[in-house]
């Protein structure tokens, strides 16, 4: 078998013509029916879930239809702002691949009041990376009410809930 291809050395590559391309793109993403109401809940300091009457799951993030039963959903349930860490990472790389000195701790958090295994992606804070464990109990730390805008970042992060291991 013949395999072709010229692998450029780093110096050669540095000399290639580069074109800066900064398209001015502005996206106005609609949150939709279900996430719209979820965001309104966050603004009020509440985590809202939605229940499927057919499979009985209580889901978060909420959605307008159950993807398993393929039926519309409209039964809203107020969940707690506490939960358990389902899985986590200690990330030393930023979104644009810069090295971080202080790591970020993304986690999937199973929200209390939702069905088992039903979680959301968020960040952990007020915790040393080496102390994070799967199954750890956590609670949302909210922005001040006057600063909330109806966004996922209205929750700053989740912190360990002491004494409830």
């Amino acid at each position, binding site marked *: *078998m*013949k*395999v*072709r*291809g*010229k*692998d*450029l050395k*780093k110096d*050669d*590559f540095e000399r290639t013509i*580069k074109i800066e*391309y900064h398209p001015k793109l502005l*996206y106005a*993403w609609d*949150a939709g029916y279900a*996430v719209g109401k*979820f*965001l309104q809940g966050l603004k009020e300091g509440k985590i809202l879930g939605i229940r499927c009457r057919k499979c009985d799951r209580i*889901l978060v*993030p909420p*959605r307008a239809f159950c*993807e398993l039963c393929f039926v519309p959903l409209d039964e809203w349930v107020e969940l707690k702002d506490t939960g358990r860490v*389902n*899985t*986590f*990472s*200690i*990330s*030393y*790389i*930023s*979104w*644009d*691949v810069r090295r971080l000195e202080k*790591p*970020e701790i*993304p*986690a*999937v958090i199973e929200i209390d009041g939702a069905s088992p*295994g*039903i*979680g*959301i*992606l*968020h*960040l952990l804070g007020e915790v040393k*990376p080496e102390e994070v464990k*799967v199954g750890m109990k956590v609670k949302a730390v909210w922005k001040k009410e006057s600063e909330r805008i109806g*966004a*996922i*970042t209205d929750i700053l992060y989740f912190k360990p809930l002491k004494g409830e291991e």
Partner: protein
Amino acid sequence: MKPYRKVAVIGAGLTKFMRRALETGRELSFYAAKEALSSSGLKFKDIQSVVMATAPDAFDGVHMKGEYLADGAGGFKRPYMRSYVGGGSGVFAIIHGWYMVASGMFDTCLVVAEEKMSSCQPHPQAAFNSIYDHTLERPLGVNLLWIFALEMQRYMHVHKISEEEIALVSVKNKKNALDHPSAQVAEEVTVKDVLNSEIMAWPVRRLMVSPTSDGAAAIVLAAEHIARRVSEKPVWIEGIGWCLDTSFWTNRDLYYPDYVEKAARMAYEMAGIKEPSKEIHIAEPYDPFAYKELHHMEGLLLCKRGEAAKLTAKGVTQRNGDLPVCPSGGLLGVGNPIAAAGLMKVCEIFWQLRGEAGKRQVPGNPKRGVAQAWGDLMQVGTVVVLGI
């Protein structure tokens, strides 16, 4: 499912996999396609349809990349289609090629997969971030490594698997790749080297991650009457399967890839396979990260859940073991030009079953192999079973 006609792979070709190729994506596609054609016994004029796999347009900065690449894949003035399910695309492409021929629409199909990730600067990873939900996830400052780190951690937690056990996959695949002429990151490393490599997003370390790559792969498919005429050793497509799971990924237990199992069951049923761990002789599961090889061996039902790490530690997955896994060197050793990496795995099974894998040849005249790719938001499994 009742396939209409038997379809064979009769040729395969690859370029080198490189960190930064001088060649354009079209040129890489042409090299791989030409090599596949010349090994197939067919001429370009005999090709009746073309399937092209290539992953996000954002890498190349070329919108509708499938059309841009068509000329290099021989897609000019022929029925041409692009296959695209993220990282799963390379194996999705042979599935689409199978349809072209098994349906009776065409007697031949050229299947080409290409990726050129180096164009996107300073790192193509940032182009991946738009796979996350725009309202609920991207504002958190996501990066692509997160999903792998979260999945790996969940997998390790549920099965009590150590980082050492996972590091063995990097050691094996990087070593296997030393015998691969296309390899980009082949090297002898130890478990200690892997565990001392820099933490990217714990538990993921640098030597547990495949590189970004430029490269292309191609195969030629033919209906039975053509394959038997032009090829001494046709390799038959015995089964295909694919499956997509929900994009509400934080509602799934990431420790097990259910969708890979569903895809595998579909392919095995078509191939008449009852006990995959006995009836599959070699496997090329998708290994963009070290733990993914183990995760996918389990999803492909090649072992019990949580058992893949033990088999690896026992040497079962070495080239001379009972079930050679990633004898090519995989994405961890050969490299990961996304769509091309999946089709590279198909090429490897093709060469292994024909006894043409050279220094990489596994002993014991394997008769049947499985290749699998994976992608989207930890969502898709694409599977093909090949046999002679």
